[in-house]
Structure formats: C-alpha cells, structure tokens
C-alpha cells in the first residue's frame, strides 16, 4: 500500500505567490473594467448583435463551467471508484472544480444585459427553463463539493468521504448534462437540437477538466519545488488519452448523424467545409490541436513517456476546447435559422445570411478574466487550507515503487514559492 501523504498549505509569502496574485488580480480588474464599459454603453460596443447573441464571454464561460465538472474527475476516481492512489490529489481536484465554476459563472453573469438584476434570477424562477435548473445545479454544486472537501479535509469526517464523493459525482454529471442541454434543447437551431450534445459535453468536460488539472499540478509543483514523480504523470496521461479518444468518437457520431439527414446538410457543409474561420477552428483547433496531436503525443513511443509532451498535450486540449466552444456557440449562431426551407431568403434583418461576428477586446478580456478568477481562488485557498500533497514523488505515490539505491527522502521537500 501507499504511504500516507501529508497535505500541506503553501506559505503564500513569496514574491512568486504575490506576483501571481497581482497578475490574476490585474486580469480580473481588466475584466471588471470591460464589464463596466459594455454595460455602460450597451452591448453595441461588443461584437455581439441581434444575430450572434452569445459571443466570446459565453465561449469562455461555458468552457470553464464544462471544465469545472471535469476537474472533479480525480476526486471522483479516488472516492467513488476506490482508486486510493488519487486520494492525496482529491482535495485539489475538488477545489479546482469549484474555482473553475465560479470563474465561468462570473463571466456569464457579468455579460448579462442587466447584471444588476442578478437578484431577480434568484427570486423569479421558471421551472421549465434549463437555465433555471442550472442555477440550482450550479449553486448545488458549490454546496455539495464544498461539503465533500470538508469530509476529505476533516479527519473526523473522513468516513463520509465516499458518500459525499458519490453525491458530488452524480451531481456533476447532472450539471454537465444541464450545460449541454442549454444547446441540445434549442429545437430551432440547425447546429444544436441534438440529444447527443449532453453526453458529448460530459465527455468533453472529462478531457478539459483533466487537462487543466494536469497543468495546475505541474506548474504549482514546479514553482513550489515539490517533487512530482513519473507515476502520477503516467496515470493522468492514460486517463487523458481515453477521454480524448472518447471525445473524438462523440464528435464523429454527432456530425455523422447530422450528415445522414439531408435537412442538416447545409449547416454541416458550413461547419465542415465552407465556414471560413469556423471550418478552420473546427479542423485545426478542435480536431487537430484539441484531439489528434495530443493523442499522438501521448501514444507515440518517442513522446508518450515525456512529461513535457504531456504538458504540451494538456495545453493543446485546452486550446482545442476553447476552439470547440467557439465553433459550437458562435458557429451555431452564424449559420442562419431556416424559416423557409428551399427558399432563397433575404431581408434587412440578415435573414438567410451567414452572420458575421468580430469579437472586441472587451469581450475577450472579460472571458479571460474568468480563468483568472478561477486561478486566483485556487491560489488563495491553497494558502489557507491544507490542499496540496507535500509530495507527488514516486516514492510516495507509486504502490509498486522500488527504492533506488541513491535517493534522498524527499517527503519534506523545501518550500520555495
């Protein structure tokens, strides 16, 4: 069996910690500034309009919300599926998922036409709306994962970890189903209206969340100077490979189903062949950068064992994920609604036209600030709670670890960050 690995706080007094705090803080302030600018002038100063009603903020927000659910993977695998090796990483996994959700929701709320009326969204409910369900799913997620973290971190409560973990696992499945259904239930839009959107979003959440988790681990352990062994990297690599392959499978099935129905040929031709930026983002961004190349990196004998390759692969998955959101959200709106099938349609209101969208700086900054919100939360919480394992070295982690002849005891590595 593995040794018990201590979870420790980070000191949070180094210039590196404060540097990150200032960096994320600046991005968040810039995001708030963007919101003020958009709300003060009205949304005409953005690239969004009556045709493309959801823009860049939604790309980032939905990406973060989807990734949030996936970031819980490691905790779920440990608590629900009984893989004890992941246990030391479970609290970080839970923290990251809460943080990512907070970042995504913040962006979503700050882009509302009337963000000052957020209280209305809390007091008026239309229970037929998937959005209204999601308000419950999101707030419930905070509570459940919060309790789950408590069960994990408080020794007296440890025995409830499995139950809390199971509830959190089921809840996150519901949450991503809800997020995917935001699009899946839009009957009129050619690109959406598919039940497969929900399971596809779940599998995407697995991949995106894990990719972010991998990067957060890598960078924090490098900066902290805490050891990180090959074992934990390879385990995560194996998981990411499976998730990516499954994601590509779902994307293929989604498009093949659409291609079979003549009714959907128009939108498929648009996304897959003639959509310009959307076609490029689909094939190069979503499929190549977000799927094929990382898979090759993680399978090819020359790179599959490399940690740098894994880091690059994880980063590419995130880039691919944002491209995928752009293609799904913006591309789905760029293709016009079909009101009159078989007719050539024109009007002063852009009927029958491919709609254009040029994101403005304010929108992009607001979107990126969601990532900063998520990361700053992690940064602050790891200072005050014992979240990060003291070591991820093979000696501590790998159940089959064989002590090399020359090796320092590295459980209490010096803290440098």
């Amino acid at each position: 069996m593995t040794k018990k690995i201590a979870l420790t706080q980070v000191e949070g007094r180094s210039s590196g910690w404060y540097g990150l705090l200032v960096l994320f803080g600046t991005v968040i302030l810039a995001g708030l500034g963007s919101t003020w600018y958009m709300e003060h002038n009205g949304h005409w100063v953005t690239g969004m309009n009556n045709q493309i009603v959801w823009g860049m903020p939604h790309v980032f927000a939905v990406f973060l919300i989807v990734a949030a659910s996936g970031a819980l993977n490691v905790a779920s695998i440990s608590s629900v599926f009984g893989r004890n090796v992941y246990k030391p990483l479970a609290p970080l996994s839970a923290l990251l998922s809460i943080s990512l959700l907070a970042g995504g929701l913040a962006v979503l709320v700050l882009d509302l036409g009337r963000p000052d009326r957020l209280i209305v969204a809390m007091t008026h409910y239309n229970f037929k709306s998937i959005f209204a369900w999601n308000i419950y799913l999101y707030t419930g997620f905070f509570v459940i994962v919060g309790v789950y973290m408590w069960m994990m971190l408080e020794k007296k409560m440890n025995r409830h970890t499995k139950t809390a973990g199971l509830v959190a696992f089921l809840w996150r499945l519901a949450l991503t189903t809800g997020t995917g259904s935001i699009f899946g239930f839009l009957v009129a839009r050619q690109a959406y209206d598919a039940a497969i959107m929900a399971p596809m979003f779940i599998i995407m959440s697995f991949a995106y969340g894990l990719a972010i988790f991998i990067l957060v681990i890598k960078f924090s352990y490098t900066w902290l100077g805490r050891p990180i062994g090959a074992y934990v990297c390879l385990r995560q690599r194996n998981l990411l490979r499976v998730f990516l392959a499954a994601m590509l499978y779902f994307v293929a099935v989604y498009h093949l189903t659409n291609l079979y129905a003549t009714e959907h040929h128009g939108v498929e031709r648009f996304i897959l062949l003639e959509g310009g930026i959307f076609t490029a983002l689909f094939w190069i961004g979503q499929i190549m950068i977000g799927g094929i190349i990382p898979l090759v990196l993680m399978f090819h004998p020359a790179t599959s064992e490399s940690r740098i390759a894994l880091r690059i692969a994880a980063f590419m998955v995130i880039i691919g994920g944002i491209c995928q959101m752009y293609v799904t959200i913006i591309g789905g709106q760029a293709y016009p609604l079909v009101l009159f099938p078989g007719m050539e349609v024109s009007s002063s209101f852009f009927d029958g036209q491919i709609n254009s969208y040029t994101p403005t700086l304010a929108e992009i900054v607001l979107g990126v600030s969601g990532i900063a919100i998520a990361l700053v939360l992690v940064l602050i919480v790891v200072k005050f709670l014992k979240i990060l394992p003291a070591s991820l070295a093979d000696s501590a982690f790998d159940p089959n670890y064989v002590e090399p002849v020359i090796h320092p005891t590295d459980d209490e590595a010096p803290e440098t960050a």
Partner: protein
Amino acid sequence: MRRTAAFLRLLGAALAAVMLMASVPASANDGVPMPQLAKPKGEKCVEPTDYMRRNHMDLLKHQRDETMHKGIRTKKYSWKGCVECHAATHPDIAEGKVPTLYPFCAQCHHYAAVQIDCIQCHTTVPESVMKSSKAEGEADKLMTMMKGHLGETEQR
C-alpha cells in the same frame, strides 16, 4: 460593493422619508438642499400624501404586474397616471417648456439617493405632451438630460 451601495441608498431613503414627514426646512449645516417639490396637477393624489410617500413604490409595482401580465389598465395607480399629474416644467429643463418628472420625482430621489429604475425604460414626459409632435423631438433631447439628472450613471 453593490449590496453596500444598495444598503446605503435604503438608509438614505429612510432618513429622507423621516425628514420629509417632519417637513423640516433645510438647515444651515445640511450639505444638500432639501428638495422643493413642484405642485402636481389636481386637488389631491390617489391616496393621502403620507401614505403615498411611504408606499408609492409598492403601488406602482403591484400595478406594473397587473398591467404587464394581465392587461389590467386601470388608471388609478398607473405609471402613466403618475407622470400625467406629477410632471411639471422647470426653468432648468428645456427652458421650462416641457413638463418632466424632474421637479417632483427626481429631485427627491436624488436627495434620498434612491435609483429610479422605472425611468431606464419608461418615458418621463406625459402622454398628453408626447402626442404633440413638437414636444416629441424635444423629449428625445430631454431623455438624455433627464437620465443624467436621475442619476442613471451612478448605478454602475
């Protein structure tokens, strides 16, 4: 932040209401001059003045839902009705030509630092005035000014 601001506004409103009821004239050490409310049209309001001072927002909100969702368009507590009687001219606004809500609603709300959400969407010029085409053009220009007066920009 916003919640704090809202709380302060509420506090300000409560204070202002107390001061209004006591109808204390502006004292020398009072930073902001007391609002000098314009005299509305007609003999009396739809309810006694004291009641209106405390409850006008609730009456408006109730009527708003009745009208919006059920199409009940009784005049008594309607926003349009308020504007019709309470809009008055003011020498500082449109050279005193167009009646608006500034001399009545806005002054007091300004004093009490309570945002009037209504006028972000509703016009503050009476319907009877809006019907004359001359005033309509004027009203356009007015809205810009009015929104400034009513502190819309303070909200964000």
